[in-house]
């Protein structure tokens, strides 16, 4: 399977967009059969310089990247949108019509033994502590519900969206003292997540890219990935994940220092986040010691083929010993 191709989106079909989902316009996605919906912001295609000379070695060299247009969810995914996927009985009682067979058939997370809100609150708070696998399965559930292909952002898409045209350390400039206007992080979060959308958005209308929860990207974390750039620029680059560890997370969290929130800062998932899981094999679904990880959705403007979509959602589960 060529996931890179899938993500790079060959322009082989003119997408059938409803008026509400017009290219380059924001829209509301209804989760069919429920009263839930969420909003998506357009991110125009374009070129940018990925990485930072001021950052860590893994952020270099700074290199030119071309990104195809997509939509990104305005906010981090909240528990409100996540729990009908997590709990089947809850999904049934919160559905406005019987749960369709193809939705029912999607594998669901094991119920977490612990309180995965970690006492930080649920309503409008970001869903968190899910694994990379769990995050992708959520997208699969959403696809079954809506018929629309949602997926995780690639690392390059995430950085491009967070920069929103800027080339500075943060989208608003290099001065970290302004970060509190845009982000919940170690200095202002009181050690917990906050309801999404309470800080200023960036120029493309995206909230909380910096801080609150760090966000999964699709990519494998390869420290020297940027050194492998060949030619003048990379088109829709992605480090297709083959191993369970590590994946790239971006944006820093309520628990992170300012420098981890920079647009170019790369962080990596860590098996130690599962040490409090006493079972073997360890859960494919939860990180009991990563209350700082959440997710955000992306929808490419040109959707891939059905076969490619299925391949994305149905990658083999890697057991975690």
């Amino acid at each position, binding site marked *: 399977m060529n996931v890179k191709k899938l993500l790079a989106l060959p322009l082989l079909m003119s997408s059938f967009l409803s008026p509400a989902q017009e290219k380059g316009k924001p829209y509301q996605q209804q989760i069919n059969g429920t009263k839930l919906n969420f909003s998506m912001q357009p991110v125009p295609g374009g070129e940018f310089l990925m990485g930072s000379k001021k950052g860590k070695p893994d952020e270099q060299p700074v290199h030119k990247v071309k990104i195809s247009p997509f939509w990104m969810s305005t906010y981090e995914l909240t528990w409100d949108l996540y*729990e009908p996927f*997590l*709990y089947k*009985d*809850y999904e049934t*009682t*919160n559905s406005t019509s019987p749960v369709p067979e193809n939705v029912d058939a999607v594998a669901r997370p*094991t*119920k*977490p*033994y*612990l*309180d*995965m*809100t*970690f*006492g930080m609150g*649920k309503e409008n708070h970001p869903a968190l502590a899910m694994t990379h696998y769990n995050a992708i399965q959520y997208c699969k559930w959403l696809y079954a519900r809506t018929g629309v292909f949602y997926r995780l952002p690639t690392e390059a898409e995430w950085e491009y969206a967070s920069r929103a045209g800027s080339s500075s350390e943060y989208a608003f400039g290099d001065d970290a003292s302004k970060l509190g206007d845009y982000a919940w992080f170690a200095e202002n979060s009181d050690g917990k997540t906050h309801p999404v959308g309470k800080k200023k958005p960036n120029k493309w209308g995206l909230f909380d890219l910096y801080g609150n929860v760090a966000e999964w990207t699709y990519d494998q974390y390869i420290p020297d990935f940027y050194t492998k750039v060949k030619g003048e620029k990379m088109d829709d680059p992605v480090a297709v994940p083959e191993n369970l560890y590590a994946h790239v997370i971006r944006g820093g969290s309520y628990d992170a220092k300012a420098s981890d929130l920079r647009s170019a800062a790369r962080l990596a998932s860590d098996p130690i986040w599962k*040490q*409090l*899981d*006493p*079972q*073997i*094999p360890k859960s494919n679904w939860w990180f*009991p*010691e990563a*209350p700082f990880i959440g997710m955000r959705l992306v929808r490419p403007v040109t959707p891939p083929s059905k076969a490619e979509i299925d391949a994305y959602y149905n990658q083999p589960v890697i057991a975690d*010993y």
Partner: protein
Amino acid sequence: MENKELRDKRREFLKTSALIAGGVFLNQFAFAGGHFSADDTIKIALIGCGDRGTGAAFQALSTKENVKLVAMADAFQDRLDNSYKALSTKFKDKVDVPQDRRFVGFDGYQKAIALADVVLLVTPPGFRPMHFEEAVKQGKHVFMEKPVAVDAPGIRKVLATAEIAKQKKLNVVVGLQRRYQENYRESLKRIQDGAIGDIVGGQVYWNSGGVWVKKREASQTEMEYQMRNWYYFNWLCGDHIVEQHVHNIDIANWVKNAYPVSVQGTGSRAWRTGKDYGEIYDNHAVELTYADGAVIYSQCRHYEGTQNRVDETFQGTKGRTYLSGSNQAVLWDHTGKEIYNHPTKGNKNPYQTEHDELFAAIAKNEFKFADAERSAKSCFTAIIGRYATYSGQVIKWDEALKAENSLMPDQLTWTANPKVMPDANGLYPIPMPGKTKVL
């Protein structure tokens, strides 16, 4: 297994070397139960090969000591096979369990225990008293998971066996891992030194979305079905107030340094009412009343889509505290000033610490761990919580401990019937306060 002669020789050697070394074994427990292999290999048997049992064996084999898994037992062939595969792949030369040391069925535990120095008792809790009794009878050190029993007769057996284990100087560690977790150890030290005064009240919670469920399969006997879907049957699980919430109740008893004299409460099945959910409740709220008049409130529920909370809070005459299994521990004085805040990062894995400390003691022939009695008493606190919610009565500790109502089936075979059976619709009798007799 080595013969008795070799064992005696090793014992003799240890005694002699202690004399010669003149105080190497200063510890009065130097001749604790010990392990008596010809070399210094500590041999382990795993009793209960589910995901938690496999996890416990991973932890035992990850200790620094010279350990080897030599026997495995489980009621089910498939659980044993999966566990063996995971263990032998990961630990290779530390796993020496040929076919004839893999025991399947209800009675395999006796043979597996006989082959080891240390046994890991990790089956569903209903079997624990029986397995613990056998392990101590055979003179083995023990790691056993919580809960250690599901009813009063089981608790009495564990308490009696705990005494014998002490006499034989056998180390017993119980998987109430908060006792081995750094935030709890640090904060409890301070609380017991009086940092927040005398504890007058508290609240302990396990409110989560619930656990797994296994559907009935047409080929299964009633016994096999209940064994597979064991969480929902009291003779195996004890209800979730016992199976999970015991962790938080144990913290209440630890903080109080005492056990309640009486318990009352209320509970029901609000969400989980279908035939897949056996006989247990999905919510319990109880008050634990201690001899000094302190009352600690305990709440546990398995509801989907509600607020979740798994933690403990206590109020003392000089301050208060917040504790949780996510490595949190904060102490405040009576004015609200923070006096301790445990760092939540960089903590050791308490599940590993249990085994690190147990196996280190065994390797040094020290007798350091006698967790069974206090664990049995915390489990019993949870059990009388269940007695209270099922009956609607005030349950007194001393009276309840004498109860004769064993939940264990009379016979343990795949064709025998457990005591609680489904009706024609596949539904089980549900405890009804005011009607259900528990004592």
